[in-house]
């Protein structure tokens, strides 16, 4: 009987839990890692959207209502991200979702978005197969790894003056997709691949992998790592006496990386979707505000946050309603001019048309040395 009482007590308390009432705000849900292995970058994203929503609200919000962000921690863990997304959609009744950083978490959250028919935009997860699943509620406002590879691979041998390329990437969807898609593009530019190595998400010590890469005697090393691993990785590469140019997808042009890696960051190339040294009025305004409010230069995660938030708000405005289905339809017709140029979505909801950048760290500043446009796939 005691057990029964307890069960009933729980059931009753749940039944009377307040249900979301008619909303005076437009709620947008954010699932980002605020704890866990990529929390640092996740927090930059979160702080950026918060800052930008304040700006948007100051200008009147959207549909005459204020925008309200509901932010949940997904910890770069699929199960936790699913729980977070479920809560956002079901309890908080958000009209759209931004997020999930790690592709595995995004893949998991996509299933939630589809089940509840709520649009989801990622600005960070680049694993190619995410858009191959034909999930109608999922949009990606960032170039995939193969797209970046196709855009820059052919010019890398010339830009870096290198023939022999070695890969050393994170052992996840991103790193693996990089090692699968880049070689063809690099080879088309006259390069060749001499080593393929991986490290794990929990690794902070890469001596064996570096020694192995070194044994292959490369002219350049292609890396994929986020800030936290990128710092340790580039330092240890230099500490083991490897002096060839490094070129990477990930954190290689961000302020935090350059500051933490110090001398090891000098001469490192970044293949990035956004870098704060882009010369355009919209970017210069963004960088100025970012520096004033968040005390650093925006990283590519901040750039991604800027893109996806504006694309979502733009779609809500054009939909003229908070009906997620209408917002989804509006997203398909996106034609947005932002930090990195014009963005449209193709039939699979993959963004194209935007500019991507090859940056080079000199005296602590990531200068743009090459640009390319993402072609319609």
């Amino acid at each position, binding site marked *: 009987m005691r057990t029964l009482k307890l069960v009933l007590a729980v059931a009753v308390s749940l039944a009377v839990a307040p249900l979301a009432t008619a909303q005076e705000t437009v709620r947008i849900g954010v699932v980002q890692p605020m*704890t*866990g*292995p990529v*929390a*640092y970058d996740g927090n930059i994203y979160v702080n950026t959207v918060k800052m930008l929503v304040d700006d948007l609200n100051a200008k009147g919000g959207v549909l005459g209502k204020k925008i309200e962000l509901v932010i949940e921690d997904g910890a770069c863990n699929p199960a936790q991200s699913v729980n977070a997304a479920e809560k956002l959609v079901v309890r908080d009744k958000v009209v759209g979702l931004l997020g999930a950083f790690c592709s595995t978490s995004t893949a998991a959250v996509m299933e939630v978005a589809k089940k509840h028919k709520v649009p989801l935009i990622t600005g960070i997860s680049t694993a190619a197969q995410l858009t191959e699943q034909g999930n109608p509620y999922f949009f990606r406002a960032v170039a995939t790894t193969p797209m970046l590879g196709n855009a820059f691979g052919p010019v890398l041998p010339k830009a870096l003056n290198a023939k022999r390329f070695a890969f050393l990437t994170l*052992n996840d969807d991103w790193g693996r997709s990089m090692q699968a898609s880049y070689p063809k593009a690099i080879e088309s530019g006259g390069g060749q691949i001499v080593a393929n*190595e*991986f*490290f*794990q998400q*929990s690794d*902070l*010590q890469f*001596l*064996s*992998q570096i*020694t*192995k890469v*070194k*044994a292959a*005697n490369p002219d350049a090393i292609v890396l994929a790592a986020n*800030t*936290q691993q990128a*710092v*340790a990785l580039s*330092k*240890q590469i*230099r*500490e*083991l*006496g490897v002096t060839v140019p490094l070129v990477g997808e990930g954190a290689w042009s961000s302020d935090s990386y350059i500051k*933490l890696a110090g*001398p*090891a960051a000098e001469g490192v190339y970044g293949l990035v979707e956004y870098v704060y040294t882009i010369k355009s009025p919209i970017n210069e305004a963004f960088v100025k505000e970012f520096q004033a409010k968040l005390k650093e230069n925006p990283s590519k995660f901040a750039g991604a946050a800027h893109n996806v938030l504006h694309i979502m708000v733009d779609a809500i405005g054009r939909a003229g309603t908070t009906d997620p289905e209408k917002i989804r339809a509006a997203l398909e017709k996106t034609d947005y001019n932002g930090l990195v140029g014009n963005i449209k979505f193709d039939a699979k909801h993959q963004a194209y048309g935007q500019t991507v950048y090859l940056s080079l760290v000199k005296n602590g500043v990531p200068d743009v040395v090459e640009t390319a446009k993402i072609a319609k796939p």
Partner: protein
Amino acid sequence: MSATITILAQHLLNGVLIGCAYALIAMGLTMIFGVMNIANFAHGEFYMLGGFVAFYLVSLMGLDYFAALPLAVAIVVALAIVLQHSIFRRLREAPMMTTTLVTIGLSILLENAALLLWGPQPQSIPTPFPTKPLSFFGVYTTPLYLFCMAVTAALIVVGHVLIRRTRMGKAMRATFQNKESAALVGIRIDRIYAYAFAFGAALAAAAGAVLGGFIPVEPATGGIITLKAFVVVILGGMGSFVGAIVGGLLLGLAEALGAGYMPTGWKDAIGFFAVILVLLFRPEGLFKRV
């Protein structure tokens, strides 16, 4: 030297560096296991705390690097004494299930406390060493790596001598081998408990503080460290100090060479496979001697 040999030598050097750290951590774990009969799942957290406290002292309080290292160890040991007094003391006669669950709980507690205090991002301790690598016939290292290797190796020797030669070390070994007759010659078991725990924590914290110069520490570092230390302890024989030292070096070398000559994703699996093999063919571990 031919390129192949240079690379082999580089792998071996890497292996010794990491192996020394494994040995140091495992020595502390085996000691706590031997004396207190506790599989301390929170052991890696002492490594993590050693690293974070040293980082805090050097980077945020501006302390001199060489002063900060021993101070960090002292601070972690002080914490270990508090934990010993409040928690581990109560585990003396407790069943194994209780001791294990309590240490698992403690490891979660310490990890999340560190997360709260220092945030999730990995931190390296700034060191005064020049970053320019040194080359010996094409084998590269840095002053910092050499310093780490020297300090860990010296601490292993010091630990070994303390355990083998001093009165307290002998009393610890006696307690470990037979608690009752140790009590009967007048050794105070509760004190030995406290010493063993503090000593084990000190070795792990020292490893964290020293290695934190080039392997960044993060709150979650402790878990994998504990696991590696357990692997070493099982390989070397549970409670065997010699086993911990030799096992640590062996694991470091095996991982370096294994990762060097097979897909690197499986690096961590080498130790795990070794544990299963040892369990099948030599369950008491490679070394029995305490």
